[in-house]
């Protein structure tokens, strides 16, 4: 139980996928203009990331390793992730057309979100069980969503603040992202094992 909690904490806060590992920066800057769309993007990515990491673990353990074809890992993982994203897109379109409109091009782009693929690769490098992989994916997705929503809140306030003219728009966003990353360095003190 303790281990599971540590995996969740470690992936969500200490080794945060965006601010510490620097994966998935495209949606981090792209969909963080409004809190609503950030929450939607976070949920969609959570769904994809959790499932992708677990399915890729299953694929690695029960197909690639027994057949000794680990060299096909990247190809097989990308295939799984692309199919999952396609499925998510259909589901979101059916369940919430408004969210589908808001997310726009970023929804199919989850396929190329390196956070998903990166986490799937990092996961199989560690001696995780299936449940631990599930938690690993879910924890990193939680961290991604948390940072995305936090940053969207910051940017909503930044839009109203009086920023020096040089920094208006994206530059102040990058500075805020840097400060947020600095703040997350504080979690390094948490025990992860």
């Amino acid at each position, binding site marked *: 139980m303790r281990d599971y909690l540590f995996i969740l904490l470690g992936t969500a806060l200490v080794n945060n996928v965006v601010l510490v590992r620097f994966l998935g920066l495209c949606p981090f800057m792209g969909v963080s203009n409004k809190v609503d769309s950030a929450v939607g993007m976070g949920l969609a990515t959570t769904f994809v990331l959790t499932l992708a990491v677990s399915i890729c673990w299953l*694929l690695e353990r029960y*197909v690639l390793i027994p*057949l*000794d*074809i680990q*060299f*096909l890992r990247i*190809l*097989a993982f990308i*295939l*799984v992730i692309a*199919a999952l994203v*396609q*499925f998510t897109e*259909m*589901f979101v*379109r*059916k369940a919430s*057309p408004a969210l589908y409109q808001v997310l726009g091009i970023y929804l199919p782009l989850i396929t190329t979100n390196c956070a998903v693929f990166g986490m799937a690769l990092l996961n199989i490098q560690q001696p995780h069980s299936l449940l631990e992989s599930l938690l690993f994916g879910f924890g990193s997705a939680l961290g991604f969503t948390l940072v995305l929503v936090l940053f969207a809140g910051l940017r909503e306030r930044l839009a109203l603040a009086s920023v020096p003219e040089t920094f208006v728009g994206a530059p102040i966003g990058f500075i805020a992202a840097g400060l947020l990353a600095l703040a997350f360095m504080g979690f390094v003190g948490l025990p992860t094992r």
Partner: protein
Amino acid sequence: MIAAVVSLTLLGIALGWVLGLAARYLRVESNPLHEEIQQMLPGVNCGQCGYPGCNGAAEALADGKAAVTLCPPGGPTLVQALAAKLGVAADSAASNGPPLLAHVNEATCIGCAHCGKRCPTDAIIGAPKQIHGVIQDACIGCGLCVEVCPTECLQLRPIASTLKTWHWPKPALSFGV
């Protein structure tokens, strides 16, 4: 080798099967008119109609919120096709005049290469600091290049009259306009 081929093929088939099932059960009833109109539009997403791309324009057309003359690249043929599809009268006044194509005036072109980047159909050729030219067959007359040309050397000109484009002049009013 065989294991790799077979396993990856099976994986692809399984995922395709799941997606096919999902497409059936999660299908969204969309306006069929929307998709048909989207097929008819040029699909270059130049944005001259004021909608975000041809998809948005097709949606507005299907909802009856936009005029059939909204698409300059489509030209008069598209207006007529859309009018027939939607059952509205084509407002011929809005799409009057012969189709216009971009033309580079070689005397004033400075080879800045701004126009080529804007062209949605890659109809403008020419390296930086070289005189540019327009491939007439690829140009759709959208006019985006005219906006960015710093020396106004790009102009929209009527298509030169050839055996293919010649047509009888329109009946003119004898007492002036």
